[in-house]
């Protein structure tokens, strides 16, 4: 991961997490369900434009990204974030279950894809895979 990480109280490497989704329920769900103590939430955004601004201010290491959002969608946002910080790890969490969307997200720089709806276990497995 990048050099901007720090240690948390347990001596574990601390990573900054940003959650991007236009649904309040989904943002809270991801925040509540992720079980990694090394992940410190630095902020949430409801669309791609907000996400880019928040990203510039908080410099996250890990991002969960919805695709279908107003103003700027997740696909465009992924490209913007990767351009700002190539080492960022991005997990797409979307109801769009078609292969073409997943491929497009990966081509823009996403590192993983999780379909909605998801269980807590699926979410944590996907995040774990992302952080390897």
């Amino acid at each position, binding site marked *: 991961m990048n050099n901007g990480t720090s240690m948390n109280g347990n001596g574990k490497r601390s990573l900054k997490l940003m959650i991007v989704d236009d*649904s*309040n*329920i*989904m943002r*809270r*769900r991801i925040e*509540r369900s992720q079980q990694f103590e090394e992940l410190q939430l630095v902020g949430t955004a409801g669309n791609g434009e907000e996400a880019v601004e928040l990203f510039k201010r908080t410099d996250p290491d890990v991002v969960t990204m919805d695709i*279908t959002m107003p103003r700027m969608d997740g696909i465009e946002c992924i490209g913007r974030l990767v351009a700002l910080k190539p080492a960022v790890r991005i997990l797409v969490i*979307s*109801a*769009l*279950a*078609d*292969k073409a*969307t997943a491929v497009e997200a990966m081509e823009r720089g996403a590192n993983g894809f999780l*379909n*909605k*709806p*998801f*269980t807590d276990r699926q979410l944590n497995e996907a995040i774990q895979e992302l952080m390897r």
Partner: protein
Amino acid sequence: MLYEQELKTFVEGTTNFFEVAAQQPASIGSPYLMEGTPAVHEYTGVINISGKREGVVYFTAPKAMLTVLLMKMQENDFSHETMRDLVGEVANTISGNARRDFGRDFVISVPSVLTNEKPEVPQKPGQRSFIIPINWRSHSAKLVVSLT
């Protein structure tokens, strides 16, 4: 003409949400043809479809069902906005399933959410609207599929 496989895709998109998000499967009632104006509950998530087929698909649910669903999802905000958010997520899942199964032959809109309003259902020759009851715990919602 609505093919059975197409109907199945929309139904599975709906039931999948309950099974995964609430960890409790929903059951399906017997589908029937809609007559007259569309029936709706308090909250309705709508997707518009064009391309190979044209029309609308919507999921409409009573507030009581959505409240219990939110509880099962460990959510503790039961505001009007959260209800709208939830019904939008169900519609989003239906839309995602349809895109996966139908590919680019179907152009599927981003879901919109209505509160205590009836969606506009186009009335075209050959259009048939099916209502599929979605039963979950003691509550019942409706999936309406209206396509040419």
